[in-house]
């Protein structure tokens, strides 16, 4: 073979043309240099075993299937996987299904995601051009809107109203009703803002809301609702306003959606406000039940100075929790124990100091969103679970946090 490099215009053209059916195969080959795997004509992934693996010490070719192969190859593969989710784009929606998520803490809850799943199921049952419209009434931290299942999204101008302003929110929703005349309105049930709004809207629209829905038959449109205070099931035809419980449907997982913001102005009518929000009331965090506390500061064996720990909890405004060891040693009462043998917590933020993370403890914090761990052992299970881990001595860190909180407080006082 001669060693003159020859151009392959066809493969270059396929590499440029991302819509070509063989593009992903050529991109893989191009990235790795060799064509070890490609998607066959029927969509099945084919592999050339002669091109993968390495020559082992005995002179035989070995293929490592544990996924620990070169990082370059895996990164290309991940890209191909993401593209396998179907992308759905609706250019001119004929109908709308509106979802008003609760957004606790500015993020989509699991129930919100279930609701978008239900909305997408209803939309695909109705017609191909039915779009799911998400109405965001409060500031949002999440960014992956399309993956949750929104075809369109409407951001209300949150600067105009406070976090609880049902009269102004209701005006926004009635303006949307006028503009889009949606097929269905979906609200998460048993939430503090959205469920209230849903009931207000249903009364305003003179529609009898279908409340406490936990199952919906898409063929007959018969909803199963928890009635009689949870002791019976009510089967009824679904109405336009649906208040659905958690796990009413599977969340969207195998499609991606456009999440295009609605740019047309929606003019809500001003209303004379008769409800005034005077803001959150500070609740003694020590009195909040551990299972429903929002922010937990939890201590374990690694804490040397418990007085500083209690002081930190007080300054942070966190509910105190403890690991089993700390309770057994008598540093904390039994009702503060977190874990499978204690309390299963649902905190949004869980700050664990000096806890190595026994499996029972990790089970107990399964539902926590954000876990921050402080430990001296970088190999412990808690560090693996944590979203942010700091490998440092706990007593120094507690002292440092106390100092910085003190400093902040003084700054605030000086400004004031």
């Amino acid at each position: 073979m001669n060693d003159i490099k020859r151009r392959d215009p066809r493969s270059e053209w396929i590499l440029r043309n991302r819509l070509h059916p063989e593009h992903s195969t050529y991109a893989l080959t191009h990235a790795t240099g060799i064509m070890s795997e490609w998607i066959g004509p029927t969509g099945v992934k084919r592999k050339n075993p002669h091109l993968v693996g390495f020559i082992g010490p005995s002179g035989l070719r070995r293929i490592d299937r544990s996924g620990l192969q070169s990082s370059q190859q895996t990164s290309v593969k991940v890209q191909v996987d993401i593209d396998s989710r179907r992308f759905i784009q609706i250019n001119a929606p004929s109908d709308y299904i509106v979802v008003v998520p609760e957004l606790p803490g500015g993020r989509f809850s699991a129930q919100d995601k279930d609701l978008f799943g239900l909305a997408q199921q209803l939309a695909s049952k109705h017609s191909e051009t039915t779009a799911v419209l998400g109405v965001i009434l409060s500031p949002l931290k999440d960014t992956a809107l399309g993956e949750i299942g929104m075809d369109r999204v409407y951001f209300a101008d949150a600067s105009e109203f406070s976090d609880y302003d049902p009269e102004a929110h209701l005006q926004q929703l009635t303006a949307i009703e006028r503009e889009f005349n949606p097929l269905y309105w979906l609200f998460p049930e048993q939430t503090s803002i959205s469920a209230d709004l849903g009931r207000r809207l249903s009364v305003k629209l003179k529609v009898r809301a279908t409340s406490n829905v936990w199952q919906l038959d898409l063929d007959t449109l018969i909803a199963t609702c928890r009635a009689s205070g949870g002791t019976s099931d009510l089967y009824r035809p679904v109405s336009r306003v649906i208040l659905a419980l958690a796990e009413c449907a599977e969340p969207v997982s195998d499609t991606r959606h456009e999440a295009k913001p609605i740019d047309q102005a929606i003019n809500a009518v001003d209303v004379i406000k008769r409800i005034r929000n005077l803001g959150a009331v500070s609740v003694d965090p020590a009195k909040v039940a551990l299972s429903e506390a929002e922010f937990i500061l939890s201590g374990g064996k690694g804490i040397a100075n418990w007085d500083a720990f209690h002081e930190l909890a007080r300054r942070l405004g966190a509910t105190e929790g403890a690991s089993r060891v700390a309770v057994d040693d008598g540093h904390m009462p039994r009702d503060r124990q977190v874990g499978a043998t204690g309390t299963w917590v649902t905190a949004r933020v869980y700050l664990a100091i000096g806890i190595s993370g026994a499996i029972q403890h990790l089970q107990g914090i399964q539902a926590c969103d954000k876990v921050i761990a402080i430990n001296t052992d970088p190999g412990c299970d808690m560090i693996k679970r944590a979203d942010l881990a700091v490998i440092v001595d706990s007593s120094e860190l507690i002292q440092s946090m106390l100092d910085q909180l003190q400093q902040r407080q003084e700054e605030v006082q000086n400004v004031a």
Partner: protein
Amino acid sequence: MSRNLARLHSSDEVSVTVLVSIGKHPVTGRLRRADQDARALEMALGLSDSEPRVIYAGPLNDSTEPALRGYLGMGVSELKVLRQSEQNDIVPALSGFLDNSPSSLILCGSRAELGESSGLVPYQLADALGYTLVSNVAVIEEVTATLAVVLQALPRGQRRRIEVVLPAILAVDTASPVARQVAYAKASRGFINCVVTDAAEDDATEQWHYQPARKRPKRLKIIKATSARDRFKAAAAKAEGTGGQVLTSVSAEEGAVAILKVLKEEGVLKT
């Protein structure tokens, strides 16, 4: 009683009405006073020395009367009954009655324990009467002739203070103080007065049917694995790193700054 959290200003004439319903014990199924309605009555009894007006709309017969007497046993001498059959919609009757004899503060439970228990009645009443509505009320702090200040129960044990213009309907949450016990003598001594009102048939319920609650199926963990290796990994899953940030070899100060920054971003740090 010591739990009288708010008192009416003595000069103000704020009339308080409590709407009650029949409850059902979740385990035994026995009819009783509804938990949230009893809490609402408890709140009203704490507001002033004058007695609140207590109204019930619904069927009155031998099985419901002992349950209704539970409210009388809390210390009210009279219970007004707007007699309706079980198929009737109680909202027109209630709104008609309250329109004729208005009250500036109406308290009721959030959800009924029998029937649809949709929690819509306070909303429909507020719409029909033109009252302001606040849901999930935990505490009434202050009531004047034109305003009420209440605490609203939020998830996770939090509270929010709300000022509401009267007349208003307050739907009481389970987070409010527990109702007092029923005194049997007072319960048997109290009067149940029937008031004649119109009855409106509830047409929507014709296609409905009830069944004892089915246990909700547990959600299965769906594994969308394309290869055998992924399926094996999912089946033999162990607590694995979720790709969190690990700060090694940092000083305590730097660590504290990073943690406080995350807490601030999450909005749990108030200062």
